[in-house]
C-alpha cells in the first residue's frame, strides 16, 4: 500500500510537467515578419473578403494579373507579363506568363482567370465586390438575370490570352486587375479558403489558429515575377491597438497596423518613435452608416442635427491624436495632410518636391489624360459641400422646430435612444463614447454602445441590424467612383438598404462620362445628394497609421496604404 501511495503521489507530481511538455508545441516560435494585422480575418476567399486585414493576407497568397508598384502606384506585371489596350480604351488583351503553377503543382491558365471573374460576377453568388466588373459587356444584364454567363465578354485564346471588352472606357481598369477580388481562385475552392485550398501567390497558408495567427510560408510552386525575401510570415489577430503597440515595442511584432489614439502624439514627436511611425495621407473616409428605416434616424432633421453638434476639429485633434482631418464630405480630402507631410519633410531639412519624396503621390497629381484615374477630391470645391460646420445651437433649433424635445425646452416628443455599433478596438470605442457624450450633452439623446469582434460586426452590419455603425471606406483605385458607387441601389457593400433614383442616375452617367471635367461635375452632384439624403455621417478623412520596426525595409508610404509584402524584407539590424 505504501508503494502504491508513493507511486500515486509521484504521478500527481509528474502529471503537471507531463501536461506542460505535451502542450508546449502550442507556442509557435519566431517568424521572419510578424504583422499585428488588427483582427481575425473573415473569409479570405477573394470573392468573399471585404476588409483590409483580409486584403493583406490575400495579396500575399494570391497573385493577380497585375501588381501595383508601391513606389509609383503604377500597375506592373503580375501573372500577365504584358497587355494591350485598344485605342478606344474598351478592349483589354492580357498575355499570361507561361509556366505559372498553383500551389498544388497544377497549371494556371487564362481559363482560371475567366472562370474566377465570371464567378465573381455571378448574381447568384452575391459576392460583396460582384459589381467591380459590371462595365464588362454583358455583365450588367447577366447580373439582372436577363442574359447568361456565356454572353459576358471575358474570353480566352489558348492557354495564355485573356481578352475583356468593356461597355465604356474605365480609366482605372488596370487598377481593378490588381485588386484582391479579381485574383484567380482555384477550381476546387468552392467558396472555401484556408490551408487546404491551393493558391498562386508567393506564400501559402501553413496554419490558421483562430484568435491567434495565420502563418504563411513560401510557396515552392511560385513561378511569378517577384522574388519574395521572407520565408515565414505571421499575421497576428490582435484587435486592440494598444496590444499591437505593446507587441511592437517588445519586439514581438514588426508592423502594427493600428495604434491607440493616445500614443499618436508621442509617436509623431518623440525621436525614438517618429522614424517608425508612418502617418501618411490616405484616400480613406471614416464615417458612420445610418439606418434610415429606424426612428429617429428616419427623420432628416435628426440626421442634420446629430451632424451639426459634432466638433470634428476637436475629434481629430484631441480624441484621435491629431493626424486625421475633419471630413468635409464623403470623398476624403488628403490635401491638408499632404501639405502637413511636406512641412514635416522641410522641417527635417528635406526640400525636394513632395512627389519625389513620397512615391505614389504622383498618382494623385492632376492629369488631363482620360485614360488615367485621378483622385480629385481637391477638385470638388470644398466650399460647395453640404457640410455645415459645428453649430449646436442651430441643431437644437432644427429639432425644436421639428417637434422634438431638446435640453432647455420641455416641449416636444422625446428622441428615442440610439445604439452605436462598432468593432472592438480602443479607438472605435473612444469615438463612440465621445459621440455618446456630445449627443447627450447637446441634444439630450441617449445612446448605448455595442462593440463586437470584426467578423461578427461585419455580419451584423451587412444585415443592417444597427442604428449607427462605425464604418470606413478606402479607395480601391484613385477615383471618386471608388467611393460613390458604394451606395447605389443594390450595391453589395452598401450595407444600408438605401436607394435613391436620382443618385443612381448621377453615378451611372458619371461612370459613362469620358470627359474628365464633366465627370467630376457629376461626381460632385452625386456626393451632394448622398450627404443630404443618404445614410452617411462623415467624420474624418483618414491618415494611414502604421508603426513599422526598423528591421523592416521596403515599406513605402502611399495614398492607398498598399504595402505589398513582395517588396518587403528584413534588414540585418
Amino acid at each position, binding site marked *: 500500500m505504501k508503494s502504491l501511495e508513493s507511486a500515486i503521489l509521484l504521478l500527481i507530481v509528474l502529471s503537471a510537467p507531463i501536461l506542460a511538455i505535451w502542450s508546449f508545441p502550442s507556442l509557435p516560435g519566431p517568424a521572419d515578419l510578424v504583422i499585428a494585422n488588427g483582427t481575425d480575418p473573415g473569409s479570405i476567399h477573394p470573392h468573399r473578403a471585404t476588409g483590409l486585414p483580409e486584403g493583406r493576407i490575400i495579396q500575399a497568397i494570391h497573385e493577380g494579373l497585375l501588381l501595383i508598384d508601391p513606389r509609383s502606384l503604377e500597375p506592373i506585371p503580375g501573372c500577365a507579363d504584358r497587355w494591350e489596350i485598344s485605342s478606344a480604351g474598351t478592349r483589354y488583351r492580357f498575355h499570361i506568363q507561361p509556366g505559372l503553377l498553383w500551389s498544388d503543382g497544377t497549371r494556371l491558365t487564362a481559363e482560371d482567370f475567366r472562370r474566377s471573374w465570371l464567378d465573381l460576377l455571378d448574381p447568384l453568388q452575391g459576392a460583396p465586390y460582384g459589381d467591380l466588373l459590371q462595365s464588362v459587356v454583358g455583365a450588367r444584364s447577366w447580373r439582372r438575370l436577363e442574359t447568361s454567363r456565356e454572353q459576358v465578354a471575358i474570353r480566352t485564346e489558348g492557354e495564355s490570352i485573356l481578352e475583356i471588352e468593356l461597355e465604356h472606357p474605365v480609366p482605372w481598369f488596370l487598377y481593378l486587375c490588381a485588386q484582391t477580388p479579381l485574383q484567380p481562385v482555384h477550381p476546387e475552392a468552392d467558396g472555401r479558403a484556408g490551408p487546404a485550398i491551393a493558391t498562386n501567390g508567393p506564400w501559402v497558408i501553413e496554419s490558421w489558429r483562430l484568435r491567434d495567427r495565420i502563418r504563411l510560408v513560401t510557396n515552392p510552386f511560385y513561378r511569378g515575377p517577384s522574388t519574395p525575401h521572407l520565408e515565414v510570415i505571421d499575421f497576428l489577430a490582435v484587435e486592440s491597438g494598444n496590444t499591437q503597440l505593446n507587441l511592437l515595442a517588445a519586439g514581438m511584432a514588426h508592423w502594427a497596423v493600428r495604434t491607440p489614439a*493616445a500614443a499618436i502624439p508621442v509617436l509623431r514627436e518623440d525621436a525614438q518613435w517618429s522614424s517608425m511611425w508612418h502617418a501618411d495621407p490616405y484616400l480613406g473616409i471614416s464615417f458612420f452608416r445610418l439606418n434610415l428605416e429606424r426612428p429617429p434616424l428616419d427623420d432628416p432633421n435628426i440626421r442634420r442635427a446629430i451632424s451639426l453638434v459634432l466638433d470634428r476639429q476637436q475629434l481629430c485633434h484631441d480624441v484621435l491624436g491629431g493626424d486625421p482631418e475633419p471630413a468635409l464630405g464623403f470623398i476624403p480630402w488628403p490635401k491638408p495632410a499632404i501639405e502637413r507631410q511636406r512641412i514635416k519633410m522641410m522641417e527635417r531639412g528635406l526640400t525636394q518636391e513632395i512627389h519625389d519624396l513620397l512615391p505614389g503621390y504622383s498618382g494623385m497629381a492632376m492629369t488631363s489624360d482620360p485614360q488615367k484615374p485621378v483622385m480629385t477630391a481637391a477638385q470638388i470645391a470644398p466650399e460647395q459641400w453640404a457640410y455645415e460646420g459645428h453649430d449646436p445651437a442651430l441643431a437644437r433649433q432644427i429639432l425644436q422646430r421639428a417637434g422634438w424635445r431638446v435640453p432647455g425646452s420641455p416641449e416636444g416628443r422625446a428622441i428615442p435612444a440610439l*445604439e452605436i455599433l462598432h468593432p472592438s478596438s480602443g479607438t472605435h470605442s473612444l469615438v463612440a463614447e465621445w459621440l455618446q457624450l456630445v449627443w447627450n450633452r447637446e441634444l439630450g439623446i441617449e445612446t448605448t454602445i455595442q462593440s463586437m469582434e470584426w467578423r461578427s460586426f461585419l455580419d451584423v452590419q451587412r444585415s443592417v441590424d444597427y442604428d449607427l455603425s462605425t464604418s470606413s471606406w478606402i479607395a480601391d483605385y484613385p477615383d471618386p467612383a471608388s467611393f460613390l458607387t458604394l451606395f447605389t441601389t443594390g450595391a453589395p457593400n452598401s450595407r444600408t438598404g438605401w436607394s435613391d433614383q436620382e443618385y443612381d442616375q448621377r453615378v451611372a452617367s458619371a461612370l459613362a462620362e469620358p470627359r474628365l471635367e464633366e465627370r467630376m461635375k457629376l461626381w460632385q452632384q452625386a456626393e451632394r445628394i448622398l450627404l443630404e439624403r443618404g445614410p452617411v455621417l462623415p467624420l474624418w478623412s483618414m491618415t494611414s497609421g502604421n508603426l513599422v520596426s526598423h528591421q523592416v525595409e521596403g515599406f513605402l508610404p502611399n495614398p492607398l496604404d498598399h504595402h505589398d509584402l513582395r517588396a518587403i524584407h528584413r534588414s540585418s539590424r
Partner: protein
Amino acid sequence: MSRRSHLTSTIPMLAFGWLLVTVATALLAPWLPIAAPDAALPEAAWSAPDDNFLLGSDALGRDLWSRILWGTRISLACAVAGGSAALLLGVSWGLLAGGGSSARDHWMMRVVDLLDSVPLVFLVILLASVARNSAWIDAGGGLTLFFIILGVVYWTPMARVVRGETRSLIRREWALAATALGTPPRRLLWRQVLPNLLPTILVTVTLIIPRVLLFEAFLSFLGLGVQAPEVSWGTLARDAFEVLNPVRTAWWMVLFPSLALAATLLSLNIVGDALRTALDPKQKR
C-alpha cells in the same frame, strides 16, 4: 490575545475607517465639489495628476477622481445588492431546510450541492452574454439584472451555514421545550432560531460581500458587466488596460482604481476577520 484588544487594535480600526470613508464619499458623491464623471474635456485628455485633475484624467479628459467616486457607488451598490440577495435567499433556504422534515432537508440540500458542483461563474458569463444588449437591457433592467445575477452566485454558502446552525439550534433544550409547549414550528424558526443565527449570518455576509465585489470587478473588466456610460471599478480597470503601453503610460488610470479596489477589499477582509474573532469564540484561526 483578548477579544477586546483584537477588535480595537489599530489595523482593523484603520480598515473600518477606510470603509466608512468609502461609503460616505460614495453616498455623497453627487454633492461633493467634484466634476461630473461624464464631463468631458477632450483638450485635457491624458493629464497626469495635477492641480486640475487630482488623480489625472482619461482618454476623453474626464476627471478620474470623480469617476472613481462614481464607480464606487456602482461597485458598492453591486456588493450591497448581491449581498442582500444572497442574504435573503440563503437565509430563507437554510432555515426552511434546517428546520423542516429530514426529507425536505435532504432535497433542499441536494439542490445546493448541485448548484455548488456547477461552475456558476461560467454560467453567469453565458447569462451576461445573453442579457447583454438584449431587450432586458434596453428596458433599463440591465443593472438590476446584474445585481440579481451577483446574488444568485453567492447564496449557497449562506444556505449551508444557516441550515447547519438551524439544525443544531432546534435540538437545543429550549427549542425542544418550546416545541413541547406547542409553539408552531414556523414561529419557532423565525422568532426564536433566527435571532440566534444573527452572528453567524453577519460573519457569512462579511465573507460574501468581498467576493461579490471581486466578481463585479471581474465581469466588468471582461466587458460583460457594467456598460458605458455607467462606470464601476471594473470598467475603470478595463479602460486603463486599453491604454497601458510604454509609449505613453497612463499609469494613474491603472494605479488609482486598482488601489481603491484593493484597499476596500483588504479592509473588508480585515474587518470581517475581526468580526469573526469577536463574534465566534469557537473559531481559532
